[in-house]
């Protein structure tokens, strides 16, 4: 019988610095690994530990890319590894975005900081079939211009037909000529028809909270607001209890839950 606790080998092919504390790791698992946008994988640093990450690469393509921020023990050790290092991988876990529910609609993607990483995977999945969706918006905020991820790609994406992208930073610098203000400020004007749109949000907990309130205020139904829940995980397969939020296990029923799912839970964002 398959052992869902055992990791498979996966090698680091390349490492790219995105910001002072964010790197993108290109990783080749042994054997096949296919996932759908929204699902995640658990990466093992051999002998140290494991943590869940959503790929930022396009689904159904190898190698996998993970854009990761250094925050704790596992990620700090990961950041000390070099190209060619061996990791472990388990997955894919979790439920993907229900892309069939997005068809024919406008998709408003709202990202904060490294939260743009899983949203990139979604964006690539959508643009590979762009005619199915009415329009795709990205509204992205980072703390400072140095903390913006995918700087070059964001420029390329704004050239794609049916895509509309706005950026902002909390605090500018001498060279920054763009918008300044938290990401909710670029949601003052909601660009889409809320009656036929879905919103997908990913970022720090406090950002997700205020963006959700803004979207609800603007008339988005709770069932059309898709949120990437962040919880401490251990098994990743719905058994160990750690990632529970209310009756849901983020690894089993999520990681993407709608506001409708979690609205009655006290303080659902970490």
């Amino acid at each position: 019988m398959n052992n869902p606790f055992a990791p498979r080998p996966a090698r680091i092919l390349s490492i790219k610095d995105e910001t002072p504390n964010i790197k993108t790791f290109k990783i080749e698992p042994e054997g096949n690994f296919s996932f759908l946008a929204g699902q995640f994988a658990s990466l093992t640093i051999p002998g140290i530990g494991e943590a869940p990450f959503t790929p930022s690469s396009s689904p159904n393509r190898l190698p996998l890319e993970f854009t990761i921020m250094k925050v704790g023990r596992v990620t700090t050790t990961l950041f000390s590894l070099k190209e060619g290092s061996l990791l472990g991988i388990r997955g894919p876990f979790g439920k993907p975005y229900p892309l069939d529910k997005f068809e024919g609609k406008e998709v408003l993607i709202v990202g904060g900081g490294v939260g743009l990483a899983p949203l990139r995977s979604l964006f690539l999945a959508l643009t590979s079939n762009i005619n199915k969706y009415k329009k795709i918006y990205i509204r992205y905020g980072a703390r400072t211009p140095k903390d913006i991820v995918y700087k070059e790609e964001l420029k390329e994406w704004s050239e794609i037909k049916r895509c509309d992208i706005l950026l902002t930073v909390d605090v500018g610098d001498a060279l920054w000529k763009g918008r300044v203000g938290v990401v909710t400020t670029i949601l003052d004007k909601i660009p889409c028809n809320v009656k036929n749109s879905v919103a997908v949000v990913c970022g720090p907990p406090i950002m997700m909270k205020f963006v959700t309130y803004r979207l609800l205020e603007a008339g988005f139904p709770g069932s059309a607001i898709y949120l990437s829940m962040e919880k401490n995980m251990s098994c990743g397969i719905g058994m160990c209890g750690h990632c529970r939020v209310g009756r849901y296990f983020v690894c089993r029923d999520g990681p993407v839950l709608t506001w409708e799912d979690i609205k009655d839970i006290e303080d659902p964002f970490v």
Partner: protein
Amino acid sequence: MYNSSFMSLYLIRTRNISEWLSNLTERFATFLPQENNVAAVSSPILSRQSKNNFPSPEVFRRIRSFNPFLKDFLFPSQERVAIYFQKEIETQKPEANKSPALVIGVKGCDIRPLLVYQNMFSLKDFIDPFFQERLSQTIIITADCPVPETTCFCNLVGVSPHGAKEVDGNISVIEEGLLLEVFTEKGKDLIKPEIFESAQDRHLQERKRNREVAENMLKEINPRPLPDNLPKRIEAKKEKEFWETKKKKCVECFGCLYICPTCFCFLLSDFPTDERYERLKSWDACYMASYARVGGGLNPRPLFYQRFRNRFHCKFMNTYYDFNFFACSGCGRCYKVCAAKIDLRDILLEI
């Protein structure tokens, strides 16, 4: 496991019980409740039966064993679940050839936890192969519980003191010996035809009377039912003051959560050994401060009253919404082990 057209009732007379148990210990790794002399622990300890020194059948009339046997046996406190990246890449496989185990004398309240494990570890998208393998190699016979004690509250959480139907069989102690009701082929296979006979009506009547006595005792021990609509009421009980008061005596020893048979939480941890890495799976408890803390340091339950409350959220609200039963067997082990004698009933009845 339960097949309604299969029910069979047999009697084994008292004088033949030792012979039966002896035969069983030849065939299986057999686990029975044993009386013990430890003063602080008044209930039996369920452990491996040797080839002689069988307990008196009276032991089956006692309440649940002090140790949560099925938890220790099917979901060990620590086990290795993967070996990775050794020279010949090979991952840990469950031990397929262990000799089958037989446990007799677990109670109705020991089976509610089994349902929790089955739901958590083997019914959804992923299956724990170690648990699955162990369970498939284990024959379980429950025993009626004719003399509940003051720590028992199975009747409050929907658990029956008359064993369970989801197992291989159930025994009841009666005057003439043991009444064995079998539910599965594996249960039937335990019967030695020479020393078992068909049960008569009078035996069933005696069992029925004993069961009524147990039910009445439970009603006396726990006269007030839990509040109606308990899951919704727990959800609505958000006052910090209420939970601060309830958790005040708790010294955070985590004894309740480790001994609780329905607690299923575990933690995976990796460490290097020689030229390979091992992954261990160990019991964990949501009372711990780091339980829900994320890598960056944020914690959804940073204060202890929130973690204390989470135990109620998990056992009496979230699991109920998920599986339609409480993740509590009413066994009272948590109370027995608690240094501060915090009684779940007192808290639940006030919600």
